[in-house]
């Protein structure tokens, strides 16, 4: 019976991908990518990976679609017909696929409990995690404690991506900027008006405004629940940061992006992003100062389990804060651009 669900979902994925390859309207391609992510999230649930499904649904479906649509609104929405014959590409793809299929012949059968990958690290993590680390969610204990250094690297990657977006796009459209045009004297390009869309009276958006005001606090509350409940169920810092950011993005979509930028200012976001990452690294350094290794939470409190609990709490908080700040920064950077050409 599980195999039937598996086969149907995988066939849906194949159909979706074939349409993504051939469709030329990019808006439809982005929507299909969202559907692809959601069906993958369902597949992850049938394969017992609940944390991964949660993250894929929140990050892959939500944030990816929003960023792609924001970028699409700034560029062209139709793809040109491909000019080259695809035969060489098809051959390359077929050969690569054949080699990969040949490689999977040696993989263990799907679902085999005795395969080699389940015998070494996984046994140690699953069996020893309740005594050594504590949280009932083994994925959180592995992510935050056993492989905490990798998670620090991941948070740094998100932070770097946020910096790259701010460096490439920036979010100030209020100031005039001076441009040196081909060696001539510096002229000043007139600033883009604050919002070039015609002002729509607020009463037009009444339903959206009221439902938005009703739901945005609830979304934030849910984000906090996911953040602090990551020890006991699926959840944790990444999902919580993304859900919190989506509340702000909803606000920015219903009211203006400028209004949202007055509520959650870019300066505050920069501060929060840095604070989250510093919190994570700071916990590691604190562990070193208290006598243990880097990110060795056993020394943080009087008993090792309490120290682990405190350490995991603090670093998940740091991760959540950084992810929230960077996601909203990315949205501001892409959403505030208004089709100017320099």
């Amino acid at each position, binding site marked *: 019976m599980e195999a039937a669900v598996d086969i149907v979902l995988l066939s849906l994925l194949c159909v979706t991908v074939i349409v993504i390859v051939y469709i030329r309207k990019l808006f439809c391609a982005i929507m299909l990518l969202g559907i692809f992510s959601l069906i993958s999230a369902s597949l992850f649930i049938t394969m017992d990976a609940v944390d991964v499904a949660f993250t894929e649904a929140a990050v892959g479906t939500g944030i990816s679609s929003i960023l792609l649509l924001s970028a699409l609104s700034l560029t062209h929405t139709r793809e040109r017909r491909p000019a080259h014959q695809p035969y060489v590409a098809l051959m390359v793809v077929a050969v690569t696929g054949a080699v990969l299929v040949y490689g999977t012949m040696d993989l263990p059968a799907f679902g085999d409990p005795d395969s080699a990958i389940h015998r070494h690290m996984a046994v140690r993590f699953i069996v020893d995690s309740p005594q050594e680390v504590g949280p009932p969610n083994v994925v959180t204990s592995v992510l935050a404690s056993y492989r905490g250094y990798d998670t620090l690297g991941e948070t740094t990657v998100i932070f770097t991506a946020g910096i790259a977006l701010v460096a490439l796009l920036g979010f100030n459209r209020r100031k005039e900027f001076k441009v040196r045009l081909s060696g001539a004297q510096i002229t000043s390009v007139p600033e883009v008006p604050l919002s070039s869309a015609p002002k729509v009276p607020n009463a*037009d958006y009444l*339903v*959206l405004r009221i*439902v938005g005001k*009703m*739901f945005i606090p609830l979304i934030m509350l849910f984000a906090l629940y996911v953040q602090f409940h990551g020890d006991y169920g699926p959840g944790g810092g990444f999902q919580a940061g993304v859900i919190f950011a989506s509340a702000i993005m909803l606000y920015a979509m219903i009211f203006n992006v400028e209004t949202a930028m007055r509520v959650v200012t870019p300066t505050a976001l920069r501060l929060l992003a840095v604070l989250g990452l510093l919190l994570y690294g700071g916990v590691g350094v604190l562990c070193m100062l208290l006598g243990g290794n880097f990110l060795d939470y056993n020394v943080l409190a009087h008993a090792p389990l309490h120290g682990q609990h405190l350490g995991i709490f603090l670093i998940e908080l740091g991760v959540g804060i950084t992810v929230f700040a960077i996601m909203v920064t990315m949205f501001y950077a892409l959403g505030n651009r208004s089709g100017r050409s320099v």
Partner: protein
Amino acid sequence: MDFDLLDILTALFLTVGCFLGISGGVGLYRLPDFFSRQHATGVTDSACSFLILFALILQSGFTLVSVKLCFIFFFLVITSTTATHALAKSALHKGITPILGREDKR
């Protein structure tokens, strides 16, 4: 095979819910006009989700999981109707008019 009443009811609700979901999908494909397609997806959002979630609530009894499923249903009802409203409003703004037009010919 002993099925109790809960299992039979769950199966019944799930079947009707899936039928409504499929009919919503068929309507999305076959109906000619944007606004009539909104009606089709409205069925999916409200009746289909209610029946499927209620079947799941029957299976999980009086636990925290049922409360969470109730919350999911309320969230779905409010947000999907708001999304339908937003879509229809922006379609009207853009100038898409229903095929049949207004009955009072204004």
